[in-house]
C-alpha cells in the first residue's frame, strides 16, 4: 500500500521563531503570520492572540496601560458620579438603617456578578465557545441562570442579615414585618434588574471587543463594575421612592 500525503512535522525552534515574529506584529493588524502559525504548528488562534498580547518579548505593562487605562478612568469617574447620587439621597437613606448597612455589600455583590459574568464570558470567547447565535449556546444559558439564582439567594440572605443587625442595634422599632418585606423586595428586584442588564451588556460588548482583536478582560470588568456601581445607586433610589 502506498500512502501519499504530506506530513507536517512540529519543529520547536521554528515555532519559537514564528512566535517571536508574531509578537512584533502590530495589535490592530490582522497578519497572515497568525494563520500560518496556526496552520503549520497547530497552535490555537486564541493562544496565539494571548502570546501576541503578553508574550516573553512583549512590554506587558505598556499593553495593559494602553488597553486598560482609559476604561478604568471612565469607570472610576462614572462611579464617582454614582457617589454624587448617593450624596443626594443620603438624607432619605439614613432614615433606613438596613439599607445603609446593606449598601456596601449590595454594591459589592452586583459588581461581583458583573466581574464573574465578564471574566467567564471572556474565557468562553478565548476558548471559541461562543458562536454567532450566542443565545443558543448552552454554556451561555447556564452562566445566566447560575448567576441569577445565586444573586436571588444572596440578595435575600444579605437583606436578612442587614435586618437582623438593625433589629439588634439601633432601630428595633423600625423593623416591622411590612418594612422587612419591602427591604427584601427592594434588594431582590435591584439585584435581578442589574444582573440581567449586566449580562446583556457583557455579551454584546464582549463579542464586539473580541472581534476587534482586543483582550475583553481589560474592558469588560471595568465596564460591568462601573455599570453595577452606578446602576445600583440609581435602581436602588428608584425602588426606594417606589416602595416608600
Amino acid at each position, binding site marked *: 500500500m502506498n500512502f501519499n500525503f504530506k506530513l507536517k512535522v512540529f519543529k520547536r525552534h521554528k515555532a519559537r521563531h514564528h512566535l517571536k515574529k508574531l509578537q512584533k506584529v502590530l495589535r490592530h493588524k490582522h497578519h497572515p503570520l497568525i494563520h500560518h502559525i496556526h496552520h503549520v504548528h497547530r497552535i490555537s488562534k*486564541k*493562544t496565539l492572540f*494571548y502570546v501576541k498580547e*503578553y*508574550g*516573553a*518579548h*512583549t512590554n*506587558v*505593562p505598556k*499593553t*495593559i*496601560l494602553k488597553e*486598560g*487605562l482609559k476604561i*478604568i*478612568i471612565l*469607570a*472610576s*469617574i462614572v*462611579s*464617582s458620579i454614582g*457617589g454624587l447620587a*448617593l*450624596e443626594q439621597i*443620603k438624607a432619605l437613606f439614613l432614615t433606613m438603617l438596613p439599607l*445603609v*448597612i*446593606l449598601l*456596601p*455589600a449590595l*454594591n*459589592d*455583590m452586583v459588581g*461581583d456578578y458583573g*466581574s*464573574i459574568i*465578564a*471574566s*467567564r464570558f*471572556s474565557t468562553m470567547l*478565548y476558548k471559541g465557545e461562543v458562536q454567532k447565535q450566542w443565545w443558543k449556546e*448552552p*454554556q451561555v444559558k*447556564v452562566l445566566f441562570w*447560575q*448567576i441569577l*439564582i*445565586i444573586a436571588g*439567594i*444572596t440578595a435575600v440572605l444579605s437583606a436578612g*442579615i*442587614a435586618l437582623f443587625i438593625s433589629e439588634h442595634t439601633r432601630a428595633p422599632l423600625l423593623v416591622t414585618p411590612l418594612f422587612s418585606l419591602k427591604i427584601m423586595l427592594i434588594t431582590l428586584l435591584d439585584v435581578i434588574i442589574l444582573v440581567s442588564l449586566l449580562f446583556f451588556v457583557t455579551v454584546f460588548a464582549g463579542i464586539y471587543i473580541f472581534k476587534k482583536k482586543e*483582550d475583553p*478582560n481589560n474592558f469588560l*470588568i*471595568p465596564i460591568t*463594575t*462601573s455599570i453595577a*456601581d452606578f446602576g445600583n445607586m440609581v435602581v436602588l433610589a428608584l425602588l426606594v421612592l417606589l416602595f416608600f
Partner: protein
Amino acid sequence: MAKEVTYKIFDENFKEIFWSQLVSIFGGLIAGSALALYTDQLLLIPSMLILLPGFLEMRANISAPMASRLSSGLFLGIIKPTGTNQIKKNIIHGNVIASFLLSFILSLLLGIIVFLMNYFVFQVYTPKLILIIVIAGIIANALEIPVALFATFYLFKKGHDPNNIMGPFLTSLGDITSIAAILLTLVIL
C-alpha cells in the same frame, strides 16, 4: 464521533460562585461596618462620598482584571502553574508593574478631580486631599496585589476556576483594604 458535553446549572461552578459570594457579603458587611464606625473621621474629608465610590471601584478594576488575565493564561497553558519560565516571569512582573502604575495615575487623577470640584463648586481649598488619595492608593495596591497573585495560582493549582472566585474575593478585599489604607494615610499625615 464528537464527545457530547452536558451543562448543568447546579454544578461545581455554582458552588464556587455561591461560596465566594458568601465571603463577599461578609467582606461587604465588614467594610460597611468599618465605614460606619469611622464615619466621623472619613467625612471630615470634604467630598469623601463623591471620592469613595471611585476609589473603591478603582481597586477592584485593577486587581480583578489582573487575576482574570492570569486565569486566561493559565487556562490556555501559556502560564504554567508551577515553576518559572521567561513568559511567566514577564507576564507576572508586567502585571505587577502595570497595577502600581495604574494605581498611581488613577489616584492622582481622582484626587485632582475631587480637588477641583471642591475648589470650584464648594469653594474649599484641599490640596492635601490629592496626597492622601495617592498614598492610600499605593498602600491599598501593595496590600492587595500579592494576595491576588498568590490566590489566583493557588486556586488554579487546586483545580478551581479562579474566574469564579477572584472577582468577588478581590472586590470585597479591595473595599476593606481601600478604607483601611485611607485611615492609615490619615494617621500617617
